[in-house]
């Protein structure tokens, strides 16, 4: 049986964007993962979106995120990310995952 976490191993040590079930966006360097999709993020930061003000980035440090709380793990294109003007981006925060 193929396991997707093996695909994720290709992303080790690269910058990823994790969307959690409660609608948070966590960015960080993927340092570790396991079969249950628990994830370790180094230099983790949360990008907080709001309709009224621009994006706020909160530094968090070393984080372990539990697999069952993860919806998406995205591979960040670092060049594209540095070009994007996050501080002037206005958007509603993501919704919670509703089963």
């Amino acid at each position, binding site marked *: 049986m193929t*396991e997707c976490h093996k695909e994720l191993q290709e992303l080790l040590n690269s910058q990823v964007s994790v*969307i959690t079930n409660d609608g948070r966006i966590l960015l960080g360097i993927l340092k570790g993962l396991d079969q249950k999709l628990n994830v370790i993020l180094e230099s983790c930061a949360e990008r907080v979106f709001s309709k009224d003000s621009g994006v706020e980035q909160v530094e968090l440090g070393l984080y372990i995120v539990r697999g069952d709380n993860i*919806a998406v*793990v*995205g591979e960040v294109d670092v060049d594209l990310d540095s070009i994007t003007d996050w501080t002037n981006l206005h*958007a509603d925060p*993501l919704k919670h995952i509703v*089963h």
Partner: protein
Amino acid sequence: KFMLFYSVFKRLIGKIVIIELKNDLEIKGTLHSVDQYLNFKLTNVTVVNEERFPHMASVKSCFIRGSCVRYVQLPIGELDPEVLQDSTRTEIAKEKAAK
């Protein structure tokens, strides 16, 4: 185990799909891989309705947890409902025989 949809998605690798998540996010991309839990990996990713969802602006490929998927939109003509119905009947018959 019921592997029908796993086989269906394996046959759709390389095709463009739109995955709608349970938090209303719609992600369009090329299906790169799928696993037994129906977790997906998409490449060449864009978010449908990017203005409302700029949260993944710098992400080009992503891994999506199966439990968070609401719908998978398939390209027209890729899935033959008749064949799928036959396969379903065969699988169910096999499971009954196995019991």
